[in-house]
């Protein structure tokens, strides 16, 4: 096992601190929706903004941190850039906290134009939010480019994208994790550049007084957000491809099918975001069709190939089940289950009913919380345990995993049922016609608390190993 770089250990600590806080914000949101905490209801939308941006941001950096660590097995990322990424992220988070807590900025994680300019918050908090995203985007773009540079130093582009496997050759050996990471980083650069474009257009309107085209802004915003979230998922999957074989005692190699699949993902992920604009009737029909096809197609290479590969990996294998392998395997399951919810919602005729209902947060919470989160925290535990080599308390680890699974899927179920019954998303208080939405919210609060408890047990198990790893780190 490679040494765990100190940057990775810092990221683990940052994730371990921020994630429970963001979970508490989520519990706050569902509690308000359940009719509780009446004096704090006016904070619903600022906290929803913080929860959304925070979760997407934390899991993006956590996945990038895991991948940066994982890549050290093959290439040499620049430690200084890794440190700049930490500082830049913390700075961006600080600005975000300021605009939300002092300015009550509440345009949501989508920051969908023209809402940032139209709310009841002061204009300076909108500017601060945009600056926060600028800092985060610039930092992460630099980080992504450095990882691409590191991969490029060892592999040619055709090797990194495993094109020689398409021709039936398997030399040089390219681990699946390098292939997936390369695909994800290229998509990530595209996503972050689109973030640059949308922020530039916001700034132009702010300082020049021009009006932006709402359709263009929505397209670019979702290109940025959807692509970023999806590639974050793929980074988590890269970690699983890398580590799960160690526990199965079998290799998980790149082959022609894996190479085809992930090269297709690179193209598909860049156009699948159109499914966010199905209800915008002014969007040209050809883009809606592309979005429909791409959304369905994205499931096959990424999920189907990976899921079958993982099942074959563990089937009748001498699996060593511990917190790392359990969480990683469960993460793949969560990704698949959430993906089914996503594919359903990405069907235009279904989207007509489900659009902007709680089905939408249901699916992305599923593949983010029970998918990506499990994969990444499983990897973090794996890294710490490899260094600490402490005896493992299987019972406690199973309790942690069980609580997190029950809690997470309980939260999702409440979202799915509510969404299926037409409860809209982003309502802080449900009117009389939607009173049943409050009951789902109340139940979800309990499940979220169970998840948090399970995560605390995970933190305890991983934390003591983390401390050992800190002492052993270079």
């Amino acid at each position, binding site marked *: 096992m490679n040494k765990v770089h100190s940057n990775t250990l810092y990221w683990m600590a940052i994730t371990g601190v921020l994630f429970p806080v963001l979970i508490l914000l989520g519990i706050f949101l569902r509690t308000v929706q359940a009719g509780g905490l009446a004096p704090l209801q006016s904070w619903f939308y600022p906290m929803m903004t913080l929860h959304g941006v925070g979760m997407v941001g934390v899991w993006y950096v956590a996945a990038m941190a895991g991948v940066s660590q994982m890549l050290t097995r093959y290439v040499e990322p620049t430690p200084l850039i890794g440190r700049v990424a930490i500082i830049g992220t913390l700075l961006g988070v600080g600005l975000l906290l300021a605009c939300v807590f002092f300015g009550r900025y509440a345009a949501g994680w989508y920051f969908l134009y023209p809402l940032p*300019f139209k709310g009841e918050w*002061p*204009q*300076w908090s*909108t*500017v*601060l939010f945009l600056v926060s995203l600028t800092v985060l985007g610039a930092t992460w773009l630099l980080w992504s*480019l450095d990882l*691409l*540079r590191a991969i*490029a*130093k060892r592999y*040619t*582009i055709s090797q*990194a994208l495993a094109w020689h496997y398409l021709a039936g050759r398997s030399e040089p050996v390219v681990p699946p994790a390098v292939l997936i990471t390369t695909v994800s*980083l*290229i*998509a990530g*650069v*595209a*996503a972050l*550049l*689109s973030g*640059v*474009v949308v922020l530039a*257009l916001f700034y*132009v*309107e*702010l*300082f*020049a*007084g*021009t*009006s*932006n*085209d*709402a*359709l*263009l802004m929505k*397209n*670019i915003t979702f*290109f940025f957000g959807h692509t970023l979230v999806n590639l974050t998922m793929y980074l988590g999957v890269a970690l699983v491809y890398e580590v799960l074989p160690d526990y199965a005692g079998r290799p998980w190699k790149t082959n022609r099918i894996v190479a085809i699949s992930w090269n297709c993902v690179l193209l598909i992920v*860049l156009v699948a975001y159109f499914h966010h604009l199905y209800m915008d*009737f*002014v969007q*040209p029909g050809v883009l809606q069709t592309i979005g429909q096809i791409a959304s369905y197609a994205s499931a096959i290479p990424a999920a189907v190939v990976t899921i079958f590969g993982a099942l074959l990996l563990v089937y009748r294998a001498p699996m060593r089940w511990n917190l790392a392998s359990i969480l990683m395997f469960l993460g793949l399951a969560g990704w698949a289950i959430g993906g089914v919810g996503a594919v359903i919602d990405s069907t235009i005729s279904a989207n007509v009913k489900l659009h902007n209902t709680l089905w939408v947060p249901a699916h992305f919470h599923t593949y983010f919380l029970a998918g990506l989160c499990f994969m990444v925290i499983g990897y973090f535990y794996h890294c710490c345990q490899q260094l600490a080599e402490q005896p493992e308390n299987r019972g406690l680890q199973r309790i942690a995993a069980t609580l997190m699974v029950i809690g997470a899927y309980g939260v999702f179920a409440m979202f799915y049922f509510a969404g299926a019954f037409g409860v809209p998303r982003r309502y802080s208080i449900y009117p009389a016609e939607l009173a049943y939405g409050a009951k789902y919210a109340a139940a979800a609060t309990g499940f979220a608390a169970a998840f948090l408890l399970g995560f605390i047990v995970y933190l305890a198990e991983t934390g003591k190993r983390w401390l050992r790893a800190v002492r052993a780190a270079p």
Partner: protein
Amino acid sequence: MCIAAASPAARAGPPPPTTRAEAALAGRVLPDIELTLADGRRARLAQLWREQALLLTFYYRRCAGTCTPFLEWVRDAVGEVGGLGRDYRVLALTIDAAETTADLRAQAAALRLLGRRDWLFAAASEADVAHIAGALDFRYRLDAVTRQYDHNSLLVGIEQGRVLRALLGTPEGSARLRELVWELRGRFVPLYRMPGRTPLRCLTLDPRSGQVRLDWGLLVLVLPAVLAIGIAGLTFAAARRERARAARGRTQ
């Protein structure tokens, strides 16, 4: 925050709710009132809109302000956009109940529109004018000193007694009017052009055909992906050159 305070958006205050007011009018049902036309005929408003779609505007003859320039702009713009007479008619309704048919004809003559069947100049009773103005949120107030009406400019597309679209104030250029007129001509226009300058658009309306066409803004959607692939290519190419240079250095 200094930057926020310095920006034009901040100095100007909140943007005027023009588009919100226009959107609020869409779908409004108009009252049927009795009109007196410039040739002296009496007609019901409902009769006119059943015959053909109408482009309604308000004015008054004694206006020392925007009325005549606005009507001139409407005259020129609808001529440019096309479809007048065939698909719709313009109805200019005076808000001054004291105006006579002679005043209506004088106004039409001043605009070189006298005798045109596609331009109707009309008057109504004070109560009826107030009724229809109220239905369209059109505010007008007589200044007791100057005896001039304080009012805005409003263009409303009417089809079968309902508002299709409205334009509030004097539009910059005829682009927004085109969208309204094409709707009057029976084509569904999914666009709603905002007031002010928009540097990049995804879609635009072809004024001649009324078709929605792709515009340069769509290229912006492609740009990030193309740049990302380009950057990746350059990164790998630079690394390959570096390896080749290192290899040459070793052999030498």
